[in-house]
């Protein structure tokens, strides 16, 4: 445990040093006439350093629902290989059926890994650099989606190393499986995505999706046949660089301080009717 803490501290210093060095060697450059890419990079260097709390405050602010008519579709700044719509996973004839392979599929999940963001990209909504992510999926596991869900909920938004410790403490098939998948994702982060400190990542998402049911049969009394469902799942995991938000839900749950603030706001908004001031 101590060793892990030490390594984490060292990691933080290293990362800070690297960020500082990047800032010094790459000042803004404008008017060179090289097109879009360069102008974007010029903007990109304006990101300020903020702590995890502030980062998640900004990110959770984006969660407030907006009417669809007020939504602004952001410009496509990234590059991704073409998604071949005509090439379907299944061999069925005709156009792709929207009711087949909808939602998250392993192909789509892997496709997110192929997205390339422009140099020094800063997310305009938060004003922060894009955190590095690893999308990983293990396919066709013979396991119940409901039981896998509990293990996934345990590690949701936890630091990877912490999640691995917690999963190893619980000796169930689901936790063992998820720990294996997380280890694979971590290995991919270092080997494939050049993420030097994979221990500084957190599990942004982890969820199972049922992929296939193989139906068996079982005879009850009086020749009463019933089917048995052997379920298969895909286990999806997304690791993201940086600290997690510290809560599991979509938005931060309100605590006593928030409620107090709200109450004060109400108290101060009161008015005495027909008063002079």
């Amino acid at each position: 445990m101590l060793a892990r803490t030490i390594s984490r501290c060292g990691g933080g210093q290293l990362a800070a040093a690297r960020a500082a060095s990047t800032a010094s060697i790459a000042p803004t450059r404008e008017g060179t006439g090289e097109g879009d890419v360069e102008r974007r990079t010029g903007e990109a260097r304006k990101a300020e350093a903020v702590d995890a709390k502030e980062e998640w405050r900004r990110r959770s602010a984006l969660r407030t629902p907006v009417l669809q008519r007020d939504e602004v579709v952001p410009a496509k700044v990234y590059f991704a290989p073409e998604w071949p719509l005509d090439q379907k996973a299944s061999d069925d004839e005709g156009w792709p059926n929207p009711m087949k392979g909808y939602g998250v599929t392993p192909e789509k999940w892997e496709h997110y890994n192929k997205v390339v963001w422009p140099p020094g990209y800063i997310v305009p909504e938060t004003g922060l650099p894009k955190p590095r992510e690893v999308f990983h999926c293990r396919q066709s596991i013979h396991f119940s989606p409901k039981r896998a869900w509990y293990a996934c909920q345990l590690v949701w938004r936890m630091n990877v190393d912490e999640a691995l410790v917690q999963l190893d403490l619980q000796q169930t098939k689901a936790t063992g499986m998820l720990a294996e998948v997380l280890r694979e994702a971590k290995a991919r982060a270092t080997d494939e995505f050049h993420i030097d400190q994979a221990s500084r990542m957190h599990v942004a998402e982890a969820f199972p999706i049922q992929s296939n049911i193989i139906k068996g049969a079982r005879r009850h009394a009086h020749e009463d046949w019933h089917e048995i469902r052997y379920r298969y799942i895909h286990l999806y995991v997304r690791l993201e660089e940086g600290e997690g938000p510290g809560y599991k839900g979509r938005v931060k749950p309100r605590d006593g301080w928030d409620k107090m603030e709200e109450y004060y706001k109400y108290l101060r908004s009161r008015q005495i009717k027909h008063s002079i001031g």
Partner: protein
Amino acid sequence: MWVGCRMGSRLTSSILPHPSIPTIIQSAGVHHHMESKNLRRFLGIERSNKAKANRNTHHNERMFRKMRGRKTVLLELPDDVEQRRLDALTPNKLRTEMLKKGINPYREVQPRLWQESQVTFQSLYGVVDPYVKSEDSLPWGTNLEGLKAKGQDMLQSVQHKWHNYKSGTSRIKKKEGFEKFDTNTFGPSADLIYEEAHLALMTRNVKELHGLITEHAYAKMWPDVSEGSIMWRLVERIEPSRVVSVRVTDNPYKSGNDIAQITVRMHLKQILAVFDRFGHLMLGSETEPRTTLEYVVFENHIAVVDGKWRLHDKVYPRWVNRKEPAHFTMEIKEDDSRPSAPISLPLRAEELIKKRKNEKQKGDDDN
């Protein structure tokens, strides 16, 4: 056994119970079925209410467990754990596994992956002659060895010049549209192709790129922008580019389908920054220009009228200075197996280890 709670509460002050307090026999709140009188019931052989369905057969009809198991239809379910284990095996071990299961791995099984690549006759997928004459000529040696090397070098350079003419320029000039081909004027057009190709690569303009680089070069250059991005800019040309080598070959041999390759020496000052897919700088710099000396190969399918000069490859002669690779930082794990100091691995390492083992064994036997 317990004592009535009301009395108990009264007795908390004194330690010993009062002799006059009567003790009450325990009565559990469980429904009984005269087990004490019925031994079969007591042993669980007989049930209390035979009219009621037995809901816990797994427990109180344990002897029929196997028979109940036979009510389930047995299927051969795909085993993902086993599949993953097999996928991780080396081909040799997989063969052994198959033989254990009674499958003939040489006859009944197809190779796991099908690899194929498209080949055209409009391009050569390589450099015909990567020889580039050294810029610093070899000194006249004082001893015989040095003289020999000098002679070899001179011979090689003369041969190279002869081939430049015989299987190079003269063959190009025979082709329609190339009658006035001159290597001295090729430099500027090569510069233009080089610059445009790199700008097209930077903006990922695939359509334009295919007109500027060959398929061979595309396979080498495209990963730079599909797995990340690059920032490239030409700052200045230090020396005018000049042709170093000209070669023409036909593919297939003696078919007359001539393809020309020209190596151009380019001495440039350029800026290159390579970013990973998240936009973090991996290699180079956006501001600091570097001087580069490159030998760039251009190719043209001269057998057809609409052949174009395209960037094909780069040649790295043995005497050229090596380029600096990317520096990746990584977390050092607390692993005891890590050696404390770097050890250079000798050539034929495995053989040497075997040899040493044998010698050691021999020594032991002698002793």
